[in-house]
């Protein structure tokens, strides 16, 4: 294809947007509605995922070592733990350090534990992080079976509930995604149905005059691209303004320890980029679908 023909296709695609007046409006509206839904959903899902990730990150296994174990035994246990699959880090925390931490954590109340510094009732501890937080339970079970291990703590009960909550939330996300995709396809295929009647004659005539399928497709391809991009403007604006204000004014009100929203700055740009890309893909797909039927190949 010659460069000026490509220019011609660009020119033609812009003209078509004007020529097709209300059909352009209908298609852009369909994309706008879809992308607004997708955008809201993206904001929810990505934040939910972020929060879930934060919570999971805090999950760790604490293996308390029996006082009967000598230094060599402790080293041997450390080595054994490191060899378990899916371990990210193993940190040894001697009982003195444990006590200091405890006293610090408790603040003023910690004073009550000072007398124990002479005769420490705590144990040496291995603090273990797993690569995937969901492996914690499995790893804890393995460590429990080792020698000189007095007890293993990972937030039994609490962790199981947390994981089932996170899993449910993610599954709801997937259901929402699928539902939304169906909505989008329904909206867009409906719009295409309207445009098809008008376009069918147009394409027939183009073929009569000698236009190849590629030649016919190009302006449609570009037109779909512009429609998709146009359709993403309102959703992006809407979501950017809403999220910015939400992050600035509403988020600080929520003081739950682990609820922490994604910072507006890179996040709004990321969501905008995703929405533009989805808009473009939907627009191009819809536009090419509307011509495909009439290009006898």
């Amino acid at each position, binding site marked *: 294809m010659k460069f*000026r023909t490509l220019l011609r296709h660009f020119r033609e695609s812009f003209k*078509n947007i004007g020529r097709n007046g209300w059909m352009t409006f209908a298609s852009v509206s369909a994309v706008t509605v879809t992308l607004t839904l997708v955008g809201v959903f993206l904001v929810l899902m990505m934040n939910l995922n972020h929060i879930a990730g934060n919570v999971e990150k805090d999950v760790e296994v604490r293996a308390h070592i029996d006082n009967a174990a000598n230094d060599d035994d402790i080293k041997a246990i450390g080595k054994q733990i490191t060899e378990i699959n899916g371990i990210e880090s193993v940190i040894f925390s001697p009982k003195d350090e444990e006590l200091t931490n405890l006293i610090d954590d408790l603040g003023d109340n910690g004073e009550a534990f000072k007398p124990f510094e002479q005769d420490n009732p705590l144990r040496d501890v291995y603090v273990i992080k797993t690569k995937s937080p969901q492996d914690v339970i499995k790893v804890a079970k393995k460590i429990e079976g080792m020698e000189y291990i007095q007890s293993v703590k990972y937030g039994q009960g609490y962790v199981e509930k947390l994981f089932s909550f996170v899993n449910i939330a993610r599954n709801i996300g997937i259901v929402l995604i699928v539902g939304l995709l169906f909505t989008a396809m329904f909206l867009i295929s409906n719009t295409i149905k309207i445009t098809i009647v008008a376009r069918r004659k147009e394409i027939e005539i183009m*073929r*009569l*005059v*000698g236009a190849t*399928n590629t030649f016919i497709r190009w302006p449609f391809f570009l037109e779909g691209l512009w429609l998709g991009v146009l359709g993403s403007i309102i959703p992006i604006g809407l979501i950017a303004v809403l999220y910015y204000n939400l992050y600035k004014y509403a988020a600080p009100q929520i003081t739950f320890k682990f609820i922490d929203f994604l910072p507006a700055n890179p996040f709004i740009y990321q969501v905008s980029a995703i929405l533009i890309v989805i808009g473009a893909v939907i627009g191009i797909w819809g536009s090419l679908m509307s011509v495909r039927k009439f290009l006898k*190949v």
Partner: protein
Amino acid sequence: MIEMIDVKKTYPNGVIAINGINVKIKPGEFVYVVGPSGAGKSTFIKMMYREEKPTSGNILVNGVSLPSIRNSKVPLFRRNIGMVFQDFKLLQTFTAYENVAFAMEVIEKEPEEIKKRVMEVLDLVGIKHKARMLPSELSGGEQQRVAIARSIVNDPKVVIADEPTGNLDPETSWEIMNIFEEINKRGTTLVMATHNRDIVNNIKRRVIAIESGKIVRDEHRGDYGYEI
């Protein structure tokens, strides 16, 4: 040069539209195709621009065997022939100028050449002053002029027309015929299906009469031959 050899055409619904046609049309000829409604004239014409494929037999246009070209190559073949229809077949969202220019853009001509040539043919068919108008803003006769301009803009060797005056009043029909005569005088082969008895009887040319899918008459300077 157009040649049909033992051509038969049966539509998928079983209607036999063309039932064994042999014909030769030489370069530069002017041929009317006449016959009663449903005789198969449009089918005959459609097979010439590969809108329909014959069920059996062969068709050669400018040396190309039409049944054997692939669907995707059909537009390429059509660049060498001009086509005019009863319903004009103009792109409704394109201006008169754009409709004609489109046929040149398709073959990637230089923009300068397109501008020059499009205005030239619009002038030839007498519609240059309405170049910026949309088909909906033009009369039937004017739209047909645009369609004719488009059919000849790339200098095809053959122009095929199916009832080009079918939707036009007698006076406008004569004006359109003058344009066709002019085009034919320049050496373009012209095949035209028509019901217009006055035209056929006054502008005497070769007449091919089709009835029930067969050629029943082929005269060098024929008459329309049917009562209305």
